[in-house]
C-alpha cells in the first residue's frame, strides 16, 4: 500500500512516502518557513525521486493538529483535496500522537507538548501497554500548571516530548522532580513516516476519515467566537 504522509501543523514540515512498511522517502524541516510555498514542490520532488506518480497512491495520511491554525489548514486542505481528486482514502493523525509514538518503547506515560501561548499547552497522554498503543488522556489545550497536576496523579514516570518542552522544562521539573523524563533533540518533532504508519494502521482497522467532512483538530474555538459567546452570557 503506497502512502503519502503530510504534516504542516507546526513549524515542522514533513513529507514521507511509504510502501509495505518501508519508508522510501522522508523530508523534515524544522524551520519557521512558509509551508504554503514549500510543501508542494517538496512533494513533487519526492515523487520524482522515488519514481511514483500521484495515481499510484493508495492512502493519504495527514497530521490534523493541534498546532498552528494556518499551518494545519495547508496540510489538511492539500491532503483532503488530493484524496478527493484521486478517489483514495484519507486518514488524519493527531500531531501529538505522532510526536509521542517515537517513544513507543518508553515504560511509563508520554506527554507530547506543543506550546499554545499564555502558559497553555496542547497535550495528551499516550502509553504502550503489552505492545498495545493507547491514548490514555485525550488531546486538549490546558494550562501547563494544571497539566502537571493531572499527570503527577499517575504516580509514574512521564516523558515530555516536543521542541516546545524547553519553554516549560523548568516548571515541569519543579512540579514533578524525578518523575519527569525528557527526550533528545533528534526526537523532538513529529515524523511524517510515523504519521503514514499510524494512518495505515487506522485504515486496516477500518477507521478512515470522511474526505468531505474532515477538518483540523484546532482544539479551541476562534478567538472571535469565544468573545461572542462570552458576550451572549452577558
Amino acid at each position, binding site marked *: 500500500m503506497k502512502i503519502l504522509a503530510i504534516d504542516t501543523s507546526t513549524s515542522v514540515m514533513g513529507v514521507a512516502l511509504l510502501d509495505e512498511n518501508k519508508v522510501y522517502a522522508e523530508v523534515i524541516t524544522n524551520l519557521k518557513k512558509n509551508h504554503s510555498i514549500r510543501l*508542494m514542490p517538496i512533494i513533487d520532488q519526492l515523487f520524482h525521486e522515488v519514481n511514483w506518480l500521484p495515481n499510484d497512491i493508495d492512502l493519504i495520511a495527514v497530521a490534523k493538529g493541534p498546532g498552528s*491554525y494556518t499551518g494545519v489548514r495547508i496540510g489538511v486542505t492539500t491532503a483532503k*483535496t*488530493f484524496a*478527493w481528486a484521486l478517489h483514495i482514502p484519507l486518514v488524519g493523525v493527531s500531531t501529538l500522537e505522532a510526536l509521542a509514538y517515537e517513544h513507543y518503547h518508553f515504560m511509563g506515560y508520554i506527554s507530547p507538548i506543543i506550546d499554545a501561548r499564555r502558559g497553555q499547552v496542547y497535550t495528551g497522554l499516550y502509553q504502550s501497554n503489552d505492545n498495545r498503543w493507547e491514548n490514555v488522556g485525550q488531546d486538549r489545550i490546558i494550562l501547563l500548571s494544571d497539566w502537571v497536576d493531572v499527570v503527577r496523579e499517575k504516580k509514574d514516570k512521564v516523558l515530555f516530548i516536543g521542541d516546545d518542552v524547553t519553554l516549560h522544562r523548568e516548571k515541569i521539573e519543579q512540579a514533578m522532580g524525578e518523575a519527569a523524563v525528557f527526550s533528545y533533540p533528534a526526537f523532538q518533532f513529529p515524523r511524517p513516516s510515523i504519521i503514514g504508519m499510524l494512518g495505515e494502521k487506522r485504515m486496516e482497522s477500518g477507521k478512515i476519515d470522511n474526505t468531505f467532512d474532515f477538518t483540523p483538530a484546532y482544539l479551541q474555538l476562534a478567538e472571535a467566537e469565544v468573545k461572542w459567546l462570552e458576550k451572549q452570557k452577558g
Partner: protein
Amino acid sequence: MISWKKEMDLNKSQRNNRKLDGPINILGIETSCDETSVAVVQDGERILSNVISSQIDIHKRFGGVVPEVASRKHVEGINFILQEALEKADLKLDDIHAIAVTYGPGLIGALLVGIAAAKAIAFAKRIPLIGVHHIAGHIYANHLVKPLQYPLIALVVSGGHTELVYMEDHLQFEVLGQTRDDAAGEAYDKVARAIQLPYPGGPHIDRLAQKGIPSIPLPRALMDDSFDFSFSGLKSAVVNKLHNAEQKGETLNKEDVAASFQESVVDVLVTKTIRAVDEKRVKHVILAGGVAANQGLRSRLKEKSVELGFDLTIPPLALCTDNAAMIASVGYFSYLKGDWSDLDLNGIAGLPLPKDK
C-alpha cells in the same frame, strides 16, 4: 517519472506549436474573503457551473468578516463545493484542462485554503496551475456577460477595493487610480453602522437613498486631476454631521443621510470614470465588484453612457460579488498565453494588479 514541473514546462512548449482543438475547461477556485466558490468555465466565457457558498450569515453576528472563522469555513466546505461544481457542470476532473485560483489580494489565511486545494488538484491530475489576481477576476466577470472590447475602462468597486483600470488588450492592466484609504464598500459599511443599519450596510444605504433627498452638504475628495479616490474623509464628515445634530437634540433623517452620502460617492466615482473615458478615448466602460449592484451608481453611469455615447457593461448581481467563474475566465486567457504558475505559488494579501500579465 518526470516531475510535475518538468511535465508542465514540456506541455507549455508543445502547446505553442499546436492548435488547440475542442473547448477548454478551466476549474476556478475563489476563497479570498468570505465566499467559498468553485466554478467550471468553458473557453473563458461559458459558465458550466458557478457554486458560491456565502458565509455572510456566519459573520453577521461579528459585524464584519472574521479572518480565522472564514478560513475554517473554507476548509470545511471546499471539497463539497468542488464536487458540486463538477456535478453541475456534468464533467469529471479528467475533463478539466487547468486549475485557476485567486492568489491575492485578500485575507491571507483564506487565500491559502484555495491555493492548497488548487495545487493538490493540479499536482494529482498533472494539469497546469494558474494564479489569478482577484481584481482581474472582477473585471473578467464582464467577459462572462459579453466579450470585452478593447480599449476599455473598468471601474472596480467593492468592500475591499476601489480601482479605475485601463486595458488595451487581454490581461493588460493599467491602474489609473485607486483608493488612498477606505474602499467605497468599506465606507458604506461604516456609514451604515453609524446610522444603525445591519451589516453589510451597502444594500441598506442604497435602498434608503432611493427614498431620501441629498440635502446634506458633504465633501467630494480629490476632485483634482488625480484618478485616486479617498472615502475616509467623507465617512468622518457623515459621522460628524450625525454627532453635531445629536448634540443639538436634533435627529437627521436617515434616508436623507443615506441619499447625501450615496450622492457624494457616486459623484466622485462617475466623474473620475468619465474623465478616464475622455482621456483614454475609450468606447467601452465596465463596472465590476460588489458595489456594482448599487442602484444609484448603476443608473448614473447608464445616464452618462447614453449622454456621451459609450458602451456600458454591468454584470448581473451574482457575478458582481466574489465568485469563481470570474477567476476561471481570467485563467483561460492566462492558460492560452502560457502564463502558468509553479507549485510554490503563495497567497499575497496585498497583491498589486500586474501591469502586463
